[in-house]
């Protein structure tokens, strides 16, 4: 496992998982957590590939998917920028929260919990 810091991003790569998914996931999470400023520029494909020592096509693939989700936008000759839309950020936050909930639900099911007992536990759990 290797860790890299690029500007406001921190990316960790694990060679036992698809690399493009890790780049994509970690940028998505950084946006959802508000760790990157809306409208700010993210590293160029070249910069990120050189820093992470990965194939530029891998970075490109991740960036293209971010663009498809409208989380990023590439302006010709200027670089790639994070969306300025709070709405998009909420959307991605919700979708990541849903993923986390699905994991939660399946581990509850795994333990033989039904919905109401899981809900009860959730209400009792400490947030702090």
């Amino acid at each position, binding site marked *: 496992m290797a860790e890299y810091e690029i500007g406001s991003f921190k990316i960790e790569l694990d060679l*036992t998982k*698809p690399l493009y998914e890790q780049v994509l996931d970690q940028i998505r999470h950084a946006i959802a957590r508000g760790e990157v400023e809306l409208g700010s520029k993210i590293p160029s*494909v*070249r910069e990120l590939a050189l820093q*992470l*020592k990965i*194939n530029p*096509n891998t970075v490109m693939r991740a960036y293209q998917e971010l663009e498809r989700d409208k989380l990023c936008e590439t302006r010709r000759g200027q670089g790639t920028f994070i969306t300025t839309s709070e709405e998009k950020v909420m959307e991605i936050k919700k979708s990541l929260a849903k993923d986390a909930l699905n994991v939660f639900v399946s581990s509850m099911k795994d333990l033989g919990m039904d919905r109401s007992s899981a809900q009860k536990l959730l209400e009792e759990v400490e947030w702090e």
Partner: protein
Amino acid sequence: MNMAVETIKLTKRYGSKIVIDNLDLSIEEGKVTGLLGPNGAGKSTLLKAIVGLVKPDSGSISIFGQKPSIKLNSEIAYLPDRAGWYQFHTVKTALGYAKSVFPGFDEPKSEELLKQMKLDVDMKVETLSKGQQACLQLIFCLARNVRLCILDEPFSGIDLISRERIIQGIIESIMDGSRTIIISTHEIYESESLFEKVVFLEEVHIKLAGDAEELRRQGDSLENVYRRLYR
């Protein structure tokens, strides 16, 4: 999907020793492919067959649909596993020489790579460290606008920093579009994140070939796959 290299039942013997046996292999155009396997698996022989330095005993090999030839070699940049260079040259004269002999040598690109690999153009080749010489050799290949780039053991016997510079040089060279690069190496850990495709050769055969990201999806690094295959 276009193939850069295709072999059909390729066989090569040195005397009575078979080094490549009935090999069917395809290497995709526009991708970085890692060619992995233990010593004696036939990696260098295969790469030599691509540039026509080794003549197959039977079977066929085609590069972009053509037979290996001197004409075709102008489309291929080949870094042999052992290469020499004029010791009395400076880096600058060596590059000038490369420009005059290698088809498709791109000077601005070579300068970019020199910067990337932190080589000083006024240094004499004989005073370069082994790692720096390897970087220079690599520039001769990567700075060429050719359809296929073959790097046979570009990292072997080279210090960590130079290995990292070589990797950065390779990344830099892929930046202006997809290139077909075949890299044979034992330094899997350091280079695997560059690979889009990977071929594991074993003595005379293919053990496994596939998409690098798909293999990672199965929860293993390429280095681990290698260990599992050859232990």
